[in-house]
């Protein structure tokens, strides 16, 4: 399991699985797949778990095998790697092993070491011969090992994050205070602005929020949250995630106000006096235009021609749906009059607690370090042995340098032969 052959097989299978999964739309219902791909293909997709491929048992098993492979590979190779690192700095070991390049008859080997950008060589005597030895970039030997460690940390951080992270969605308009699930904390939306440019495109969504332990609003901590600028409060991270329109619904009966409430698009209220009778705000168009082909749309984000799309249901059955504009006067439903007002944007904030995010980031950075070591610290060593005639034979070795190292070596010894 710790072999490189197994690793290669796993990488190929994982790549193939990712390719297949990328062509199948993820996370849809069985009916959706049947309509999109046809009965047979849909059954196959659902049978193989391709509808949620990256969380399927087989994908998780492959990932677990990859982790096992990386772990075993690193464990098995640790001792040999330590030995190899020591051997790399040992002149006697260099002399007894093969060299990638050799040059004889060198009068002064020191310029060769310099041109090969080797550190100052150390002098020693081996088997009665004077030897100069120098090596560099031994840390490069650890590149693949460090890279594997980084990938392991990355997968571990991601997996632990997926298993333990908690996530909540809080939405509302300025002035709303909402609990954050069962955490004992609440989030107050102090202000929310959609900043528009002159051309009506959105420049930024900015929410000012305060997070506090429930029942202790005075100890709350405030922050400004916008897209790309999340805030960290009490160990939670708050993200500006989405937005939409909200409006106030006011219900009157015989001219007497009955109830009033701000609702977000998609939400509705049940009329207090009439159980089962509900009014919904389906959508809001600040600059309403009924396109002949494409239906209702808004021409801009500005309140030039506001219109509300609403619906009325009784005991969950639709009894009416229409557009409404203030100039039309209130909507009449039985004895009630209904009106919409105060259109505004609501914010949807995502609140997350993921303790292992840092571990995943560390994994990514360690992987980078491993690749840097592996690719840009190429271990190389050179040694020179004094011959009986007083001239030197210079040897060079680089495990990953190949033809380029030999070329550099040839260039370094050029002109030094006497």
């Amino acid at each position, binding site marked *: 399991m710790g072999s*490189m*052959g197994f*690793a*290669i097989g796993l*990488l*190929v299978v*994982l*790549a193939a699985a*990712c*390719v297949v*999964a*990328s*062509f199948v739309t*993820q996370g849809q219902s069985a009916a959706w797949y049947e309509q999109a791909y046809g009965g047979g293909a849909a059954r196959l997709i659902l049978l193989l778990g391709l509808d949620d491929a*990256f969380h399927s048992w087989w994908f998780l098993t492959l990932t677990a095998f990859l982790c096992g492979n990386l772990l075993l590979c690193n464990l098995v190779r640790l001792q040999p790697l330590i030995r190899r690192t020591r051997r790399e700095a040992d002149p006697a070991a260099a002399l007894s092993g093969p060299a990638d390049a050799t040059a004889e008859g060198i009068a002064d080997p020191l310029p060769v070491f310099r041109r090969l950008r080797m550190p100052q060589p150390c002098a020693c005597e081996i088997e009665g011969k004077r030897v100069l030895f120098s090596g560099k970039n031994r840390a490069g030997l650890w590149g693949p090992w460090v890279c594997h460690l980084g990938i392991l940390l990355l997968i571990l951080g*991601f997996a632990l994050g997926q298993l333990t992270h908690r*996530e909540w969605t809080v939405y509302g308009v300025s002035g709303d205070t909402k609990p954050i699930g069962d955490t004992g904390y609440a989030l107050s939306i102090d202000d929310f602005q959609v900043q528009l*440019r002159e*051309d009506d*495109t*959105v*420049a*930024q*969504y900015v929410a000012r929020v305060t997070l506090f332990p429930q029942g202790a609003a005075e100890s709350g901590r405030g922050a400004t949250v*916008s*897209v*790309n*600028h*999340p805030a960290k409060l009490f160990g939670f*991270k708050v*993200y500006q*995630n989405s937005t939409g329109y909200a409006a106030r619904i006011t219900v009157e009966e015989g001219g007497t106000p009955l109830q009033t409430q701000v609702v977000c698009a998609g939400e509705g209220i049940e009329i207090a006096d009439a159980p089962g009778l509900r009014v919904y705000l389906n959508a809001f168009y600040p600059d309403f235009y009924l396109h002949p082909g494409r239906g209702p749309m808004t021409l801009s984000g500005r309140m030039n021609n506001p219109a509300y799309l609403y619906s009325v249901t009784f005991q969950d059955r639709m009894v009416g749906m229409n557009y409404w504009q203030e100039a039309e006067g209130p909507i009449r439903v039985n004895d009630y009059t209904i009106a919409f007002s105060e259109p505004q944007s609501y914010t949807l904030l*995502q609140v*997350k607690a993921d303790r292992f*995010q840092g571990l*995943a*980031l560390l994994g*990514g*950075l360690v*992987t*980078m370090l491993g*690749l*840097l070591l*592996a*690719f*840009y610290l190429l271990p190389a060593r050179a040694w020179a042995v004094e011959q009986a005639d007083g001239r030197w034979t210079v040897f060079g070795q680089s495990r990953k340098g*190949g*033809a*380029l190292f030999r*070329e550099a070596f040839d260039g370094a010894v050029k002109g030094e032969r006497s």
Partner: protein
Amino acid sequence: MSMPLENVLFYGVLGLYFGAMLLYFLFVAVKKEAVGKVALLVQVLGLLLHTVAIVLRGIAAGRLPLTNQYEFASAFSWGLCLVSLLFILRFKFTLLGAFAAPVTFLIIGYAAMQSKEIHELMPALQSNWLGFHVSTAIIAYGAFGVSFVLGIIFLLREKMKASGFLDQHIPSREKLDMLSYRSVSLGLLFLTLTIVTGAIWAERAWGSYWSWDPKETWSLVTWLVYAVYLHLRIRRGWQGKSAAVFAVAGFVCVIFTYIGVNTLLPGVHSYK
């Protein structure tokens, strides 16, 4: 909004890259060193002008010009031109230009077919991480492009008859293989950086650093493909022809990640 001067410069660059490509072909045909030097000069001039065009667009847009298909394609061809020039100068390998220049020209040609309008950025794209993320992708793609070209040269070299000119201008098979390995190494390092910076940015913008978006998935596929390449080199001694074939196939994956995913698979990187 699009900029007239940047437009003029862009088509000037297109012309220079095309000219460099023709001159490199001429260099191979007439086997004159002077023609090779002129081709190299035209390529350098093209790169300099391209840099000016990108900087001008950045100034006009008030941001890094790396956010849509046109801008990325233009930057991709800039990256490929830069990396191929570095390899040409560092390894005295002028003939590489004859193979890299057509790929550079094709990519900038693809850019020419895209809309050059400058649009304001949506909030999710307003991040300093965008610059890190996309510029590392440009270097990565450029390096993979060079490894693709080196793979092609390796495969063609096997079929070419020996001649003094080719022996003088095309490195040995062993050196070609080593150069290809070096460019894959550079590409993989920068692709990893692209993925890491993209994850950091995604976390800040969408609250999730990895969400299996098609672009993310295909970046991972590309990473896995080149990881297989590196492991096969060690494990099975896959060098030479097999490695060259793999480098060519790997770039197909890069191109799909770049163009195929953006146009065929919907996601946050889609420009549909």
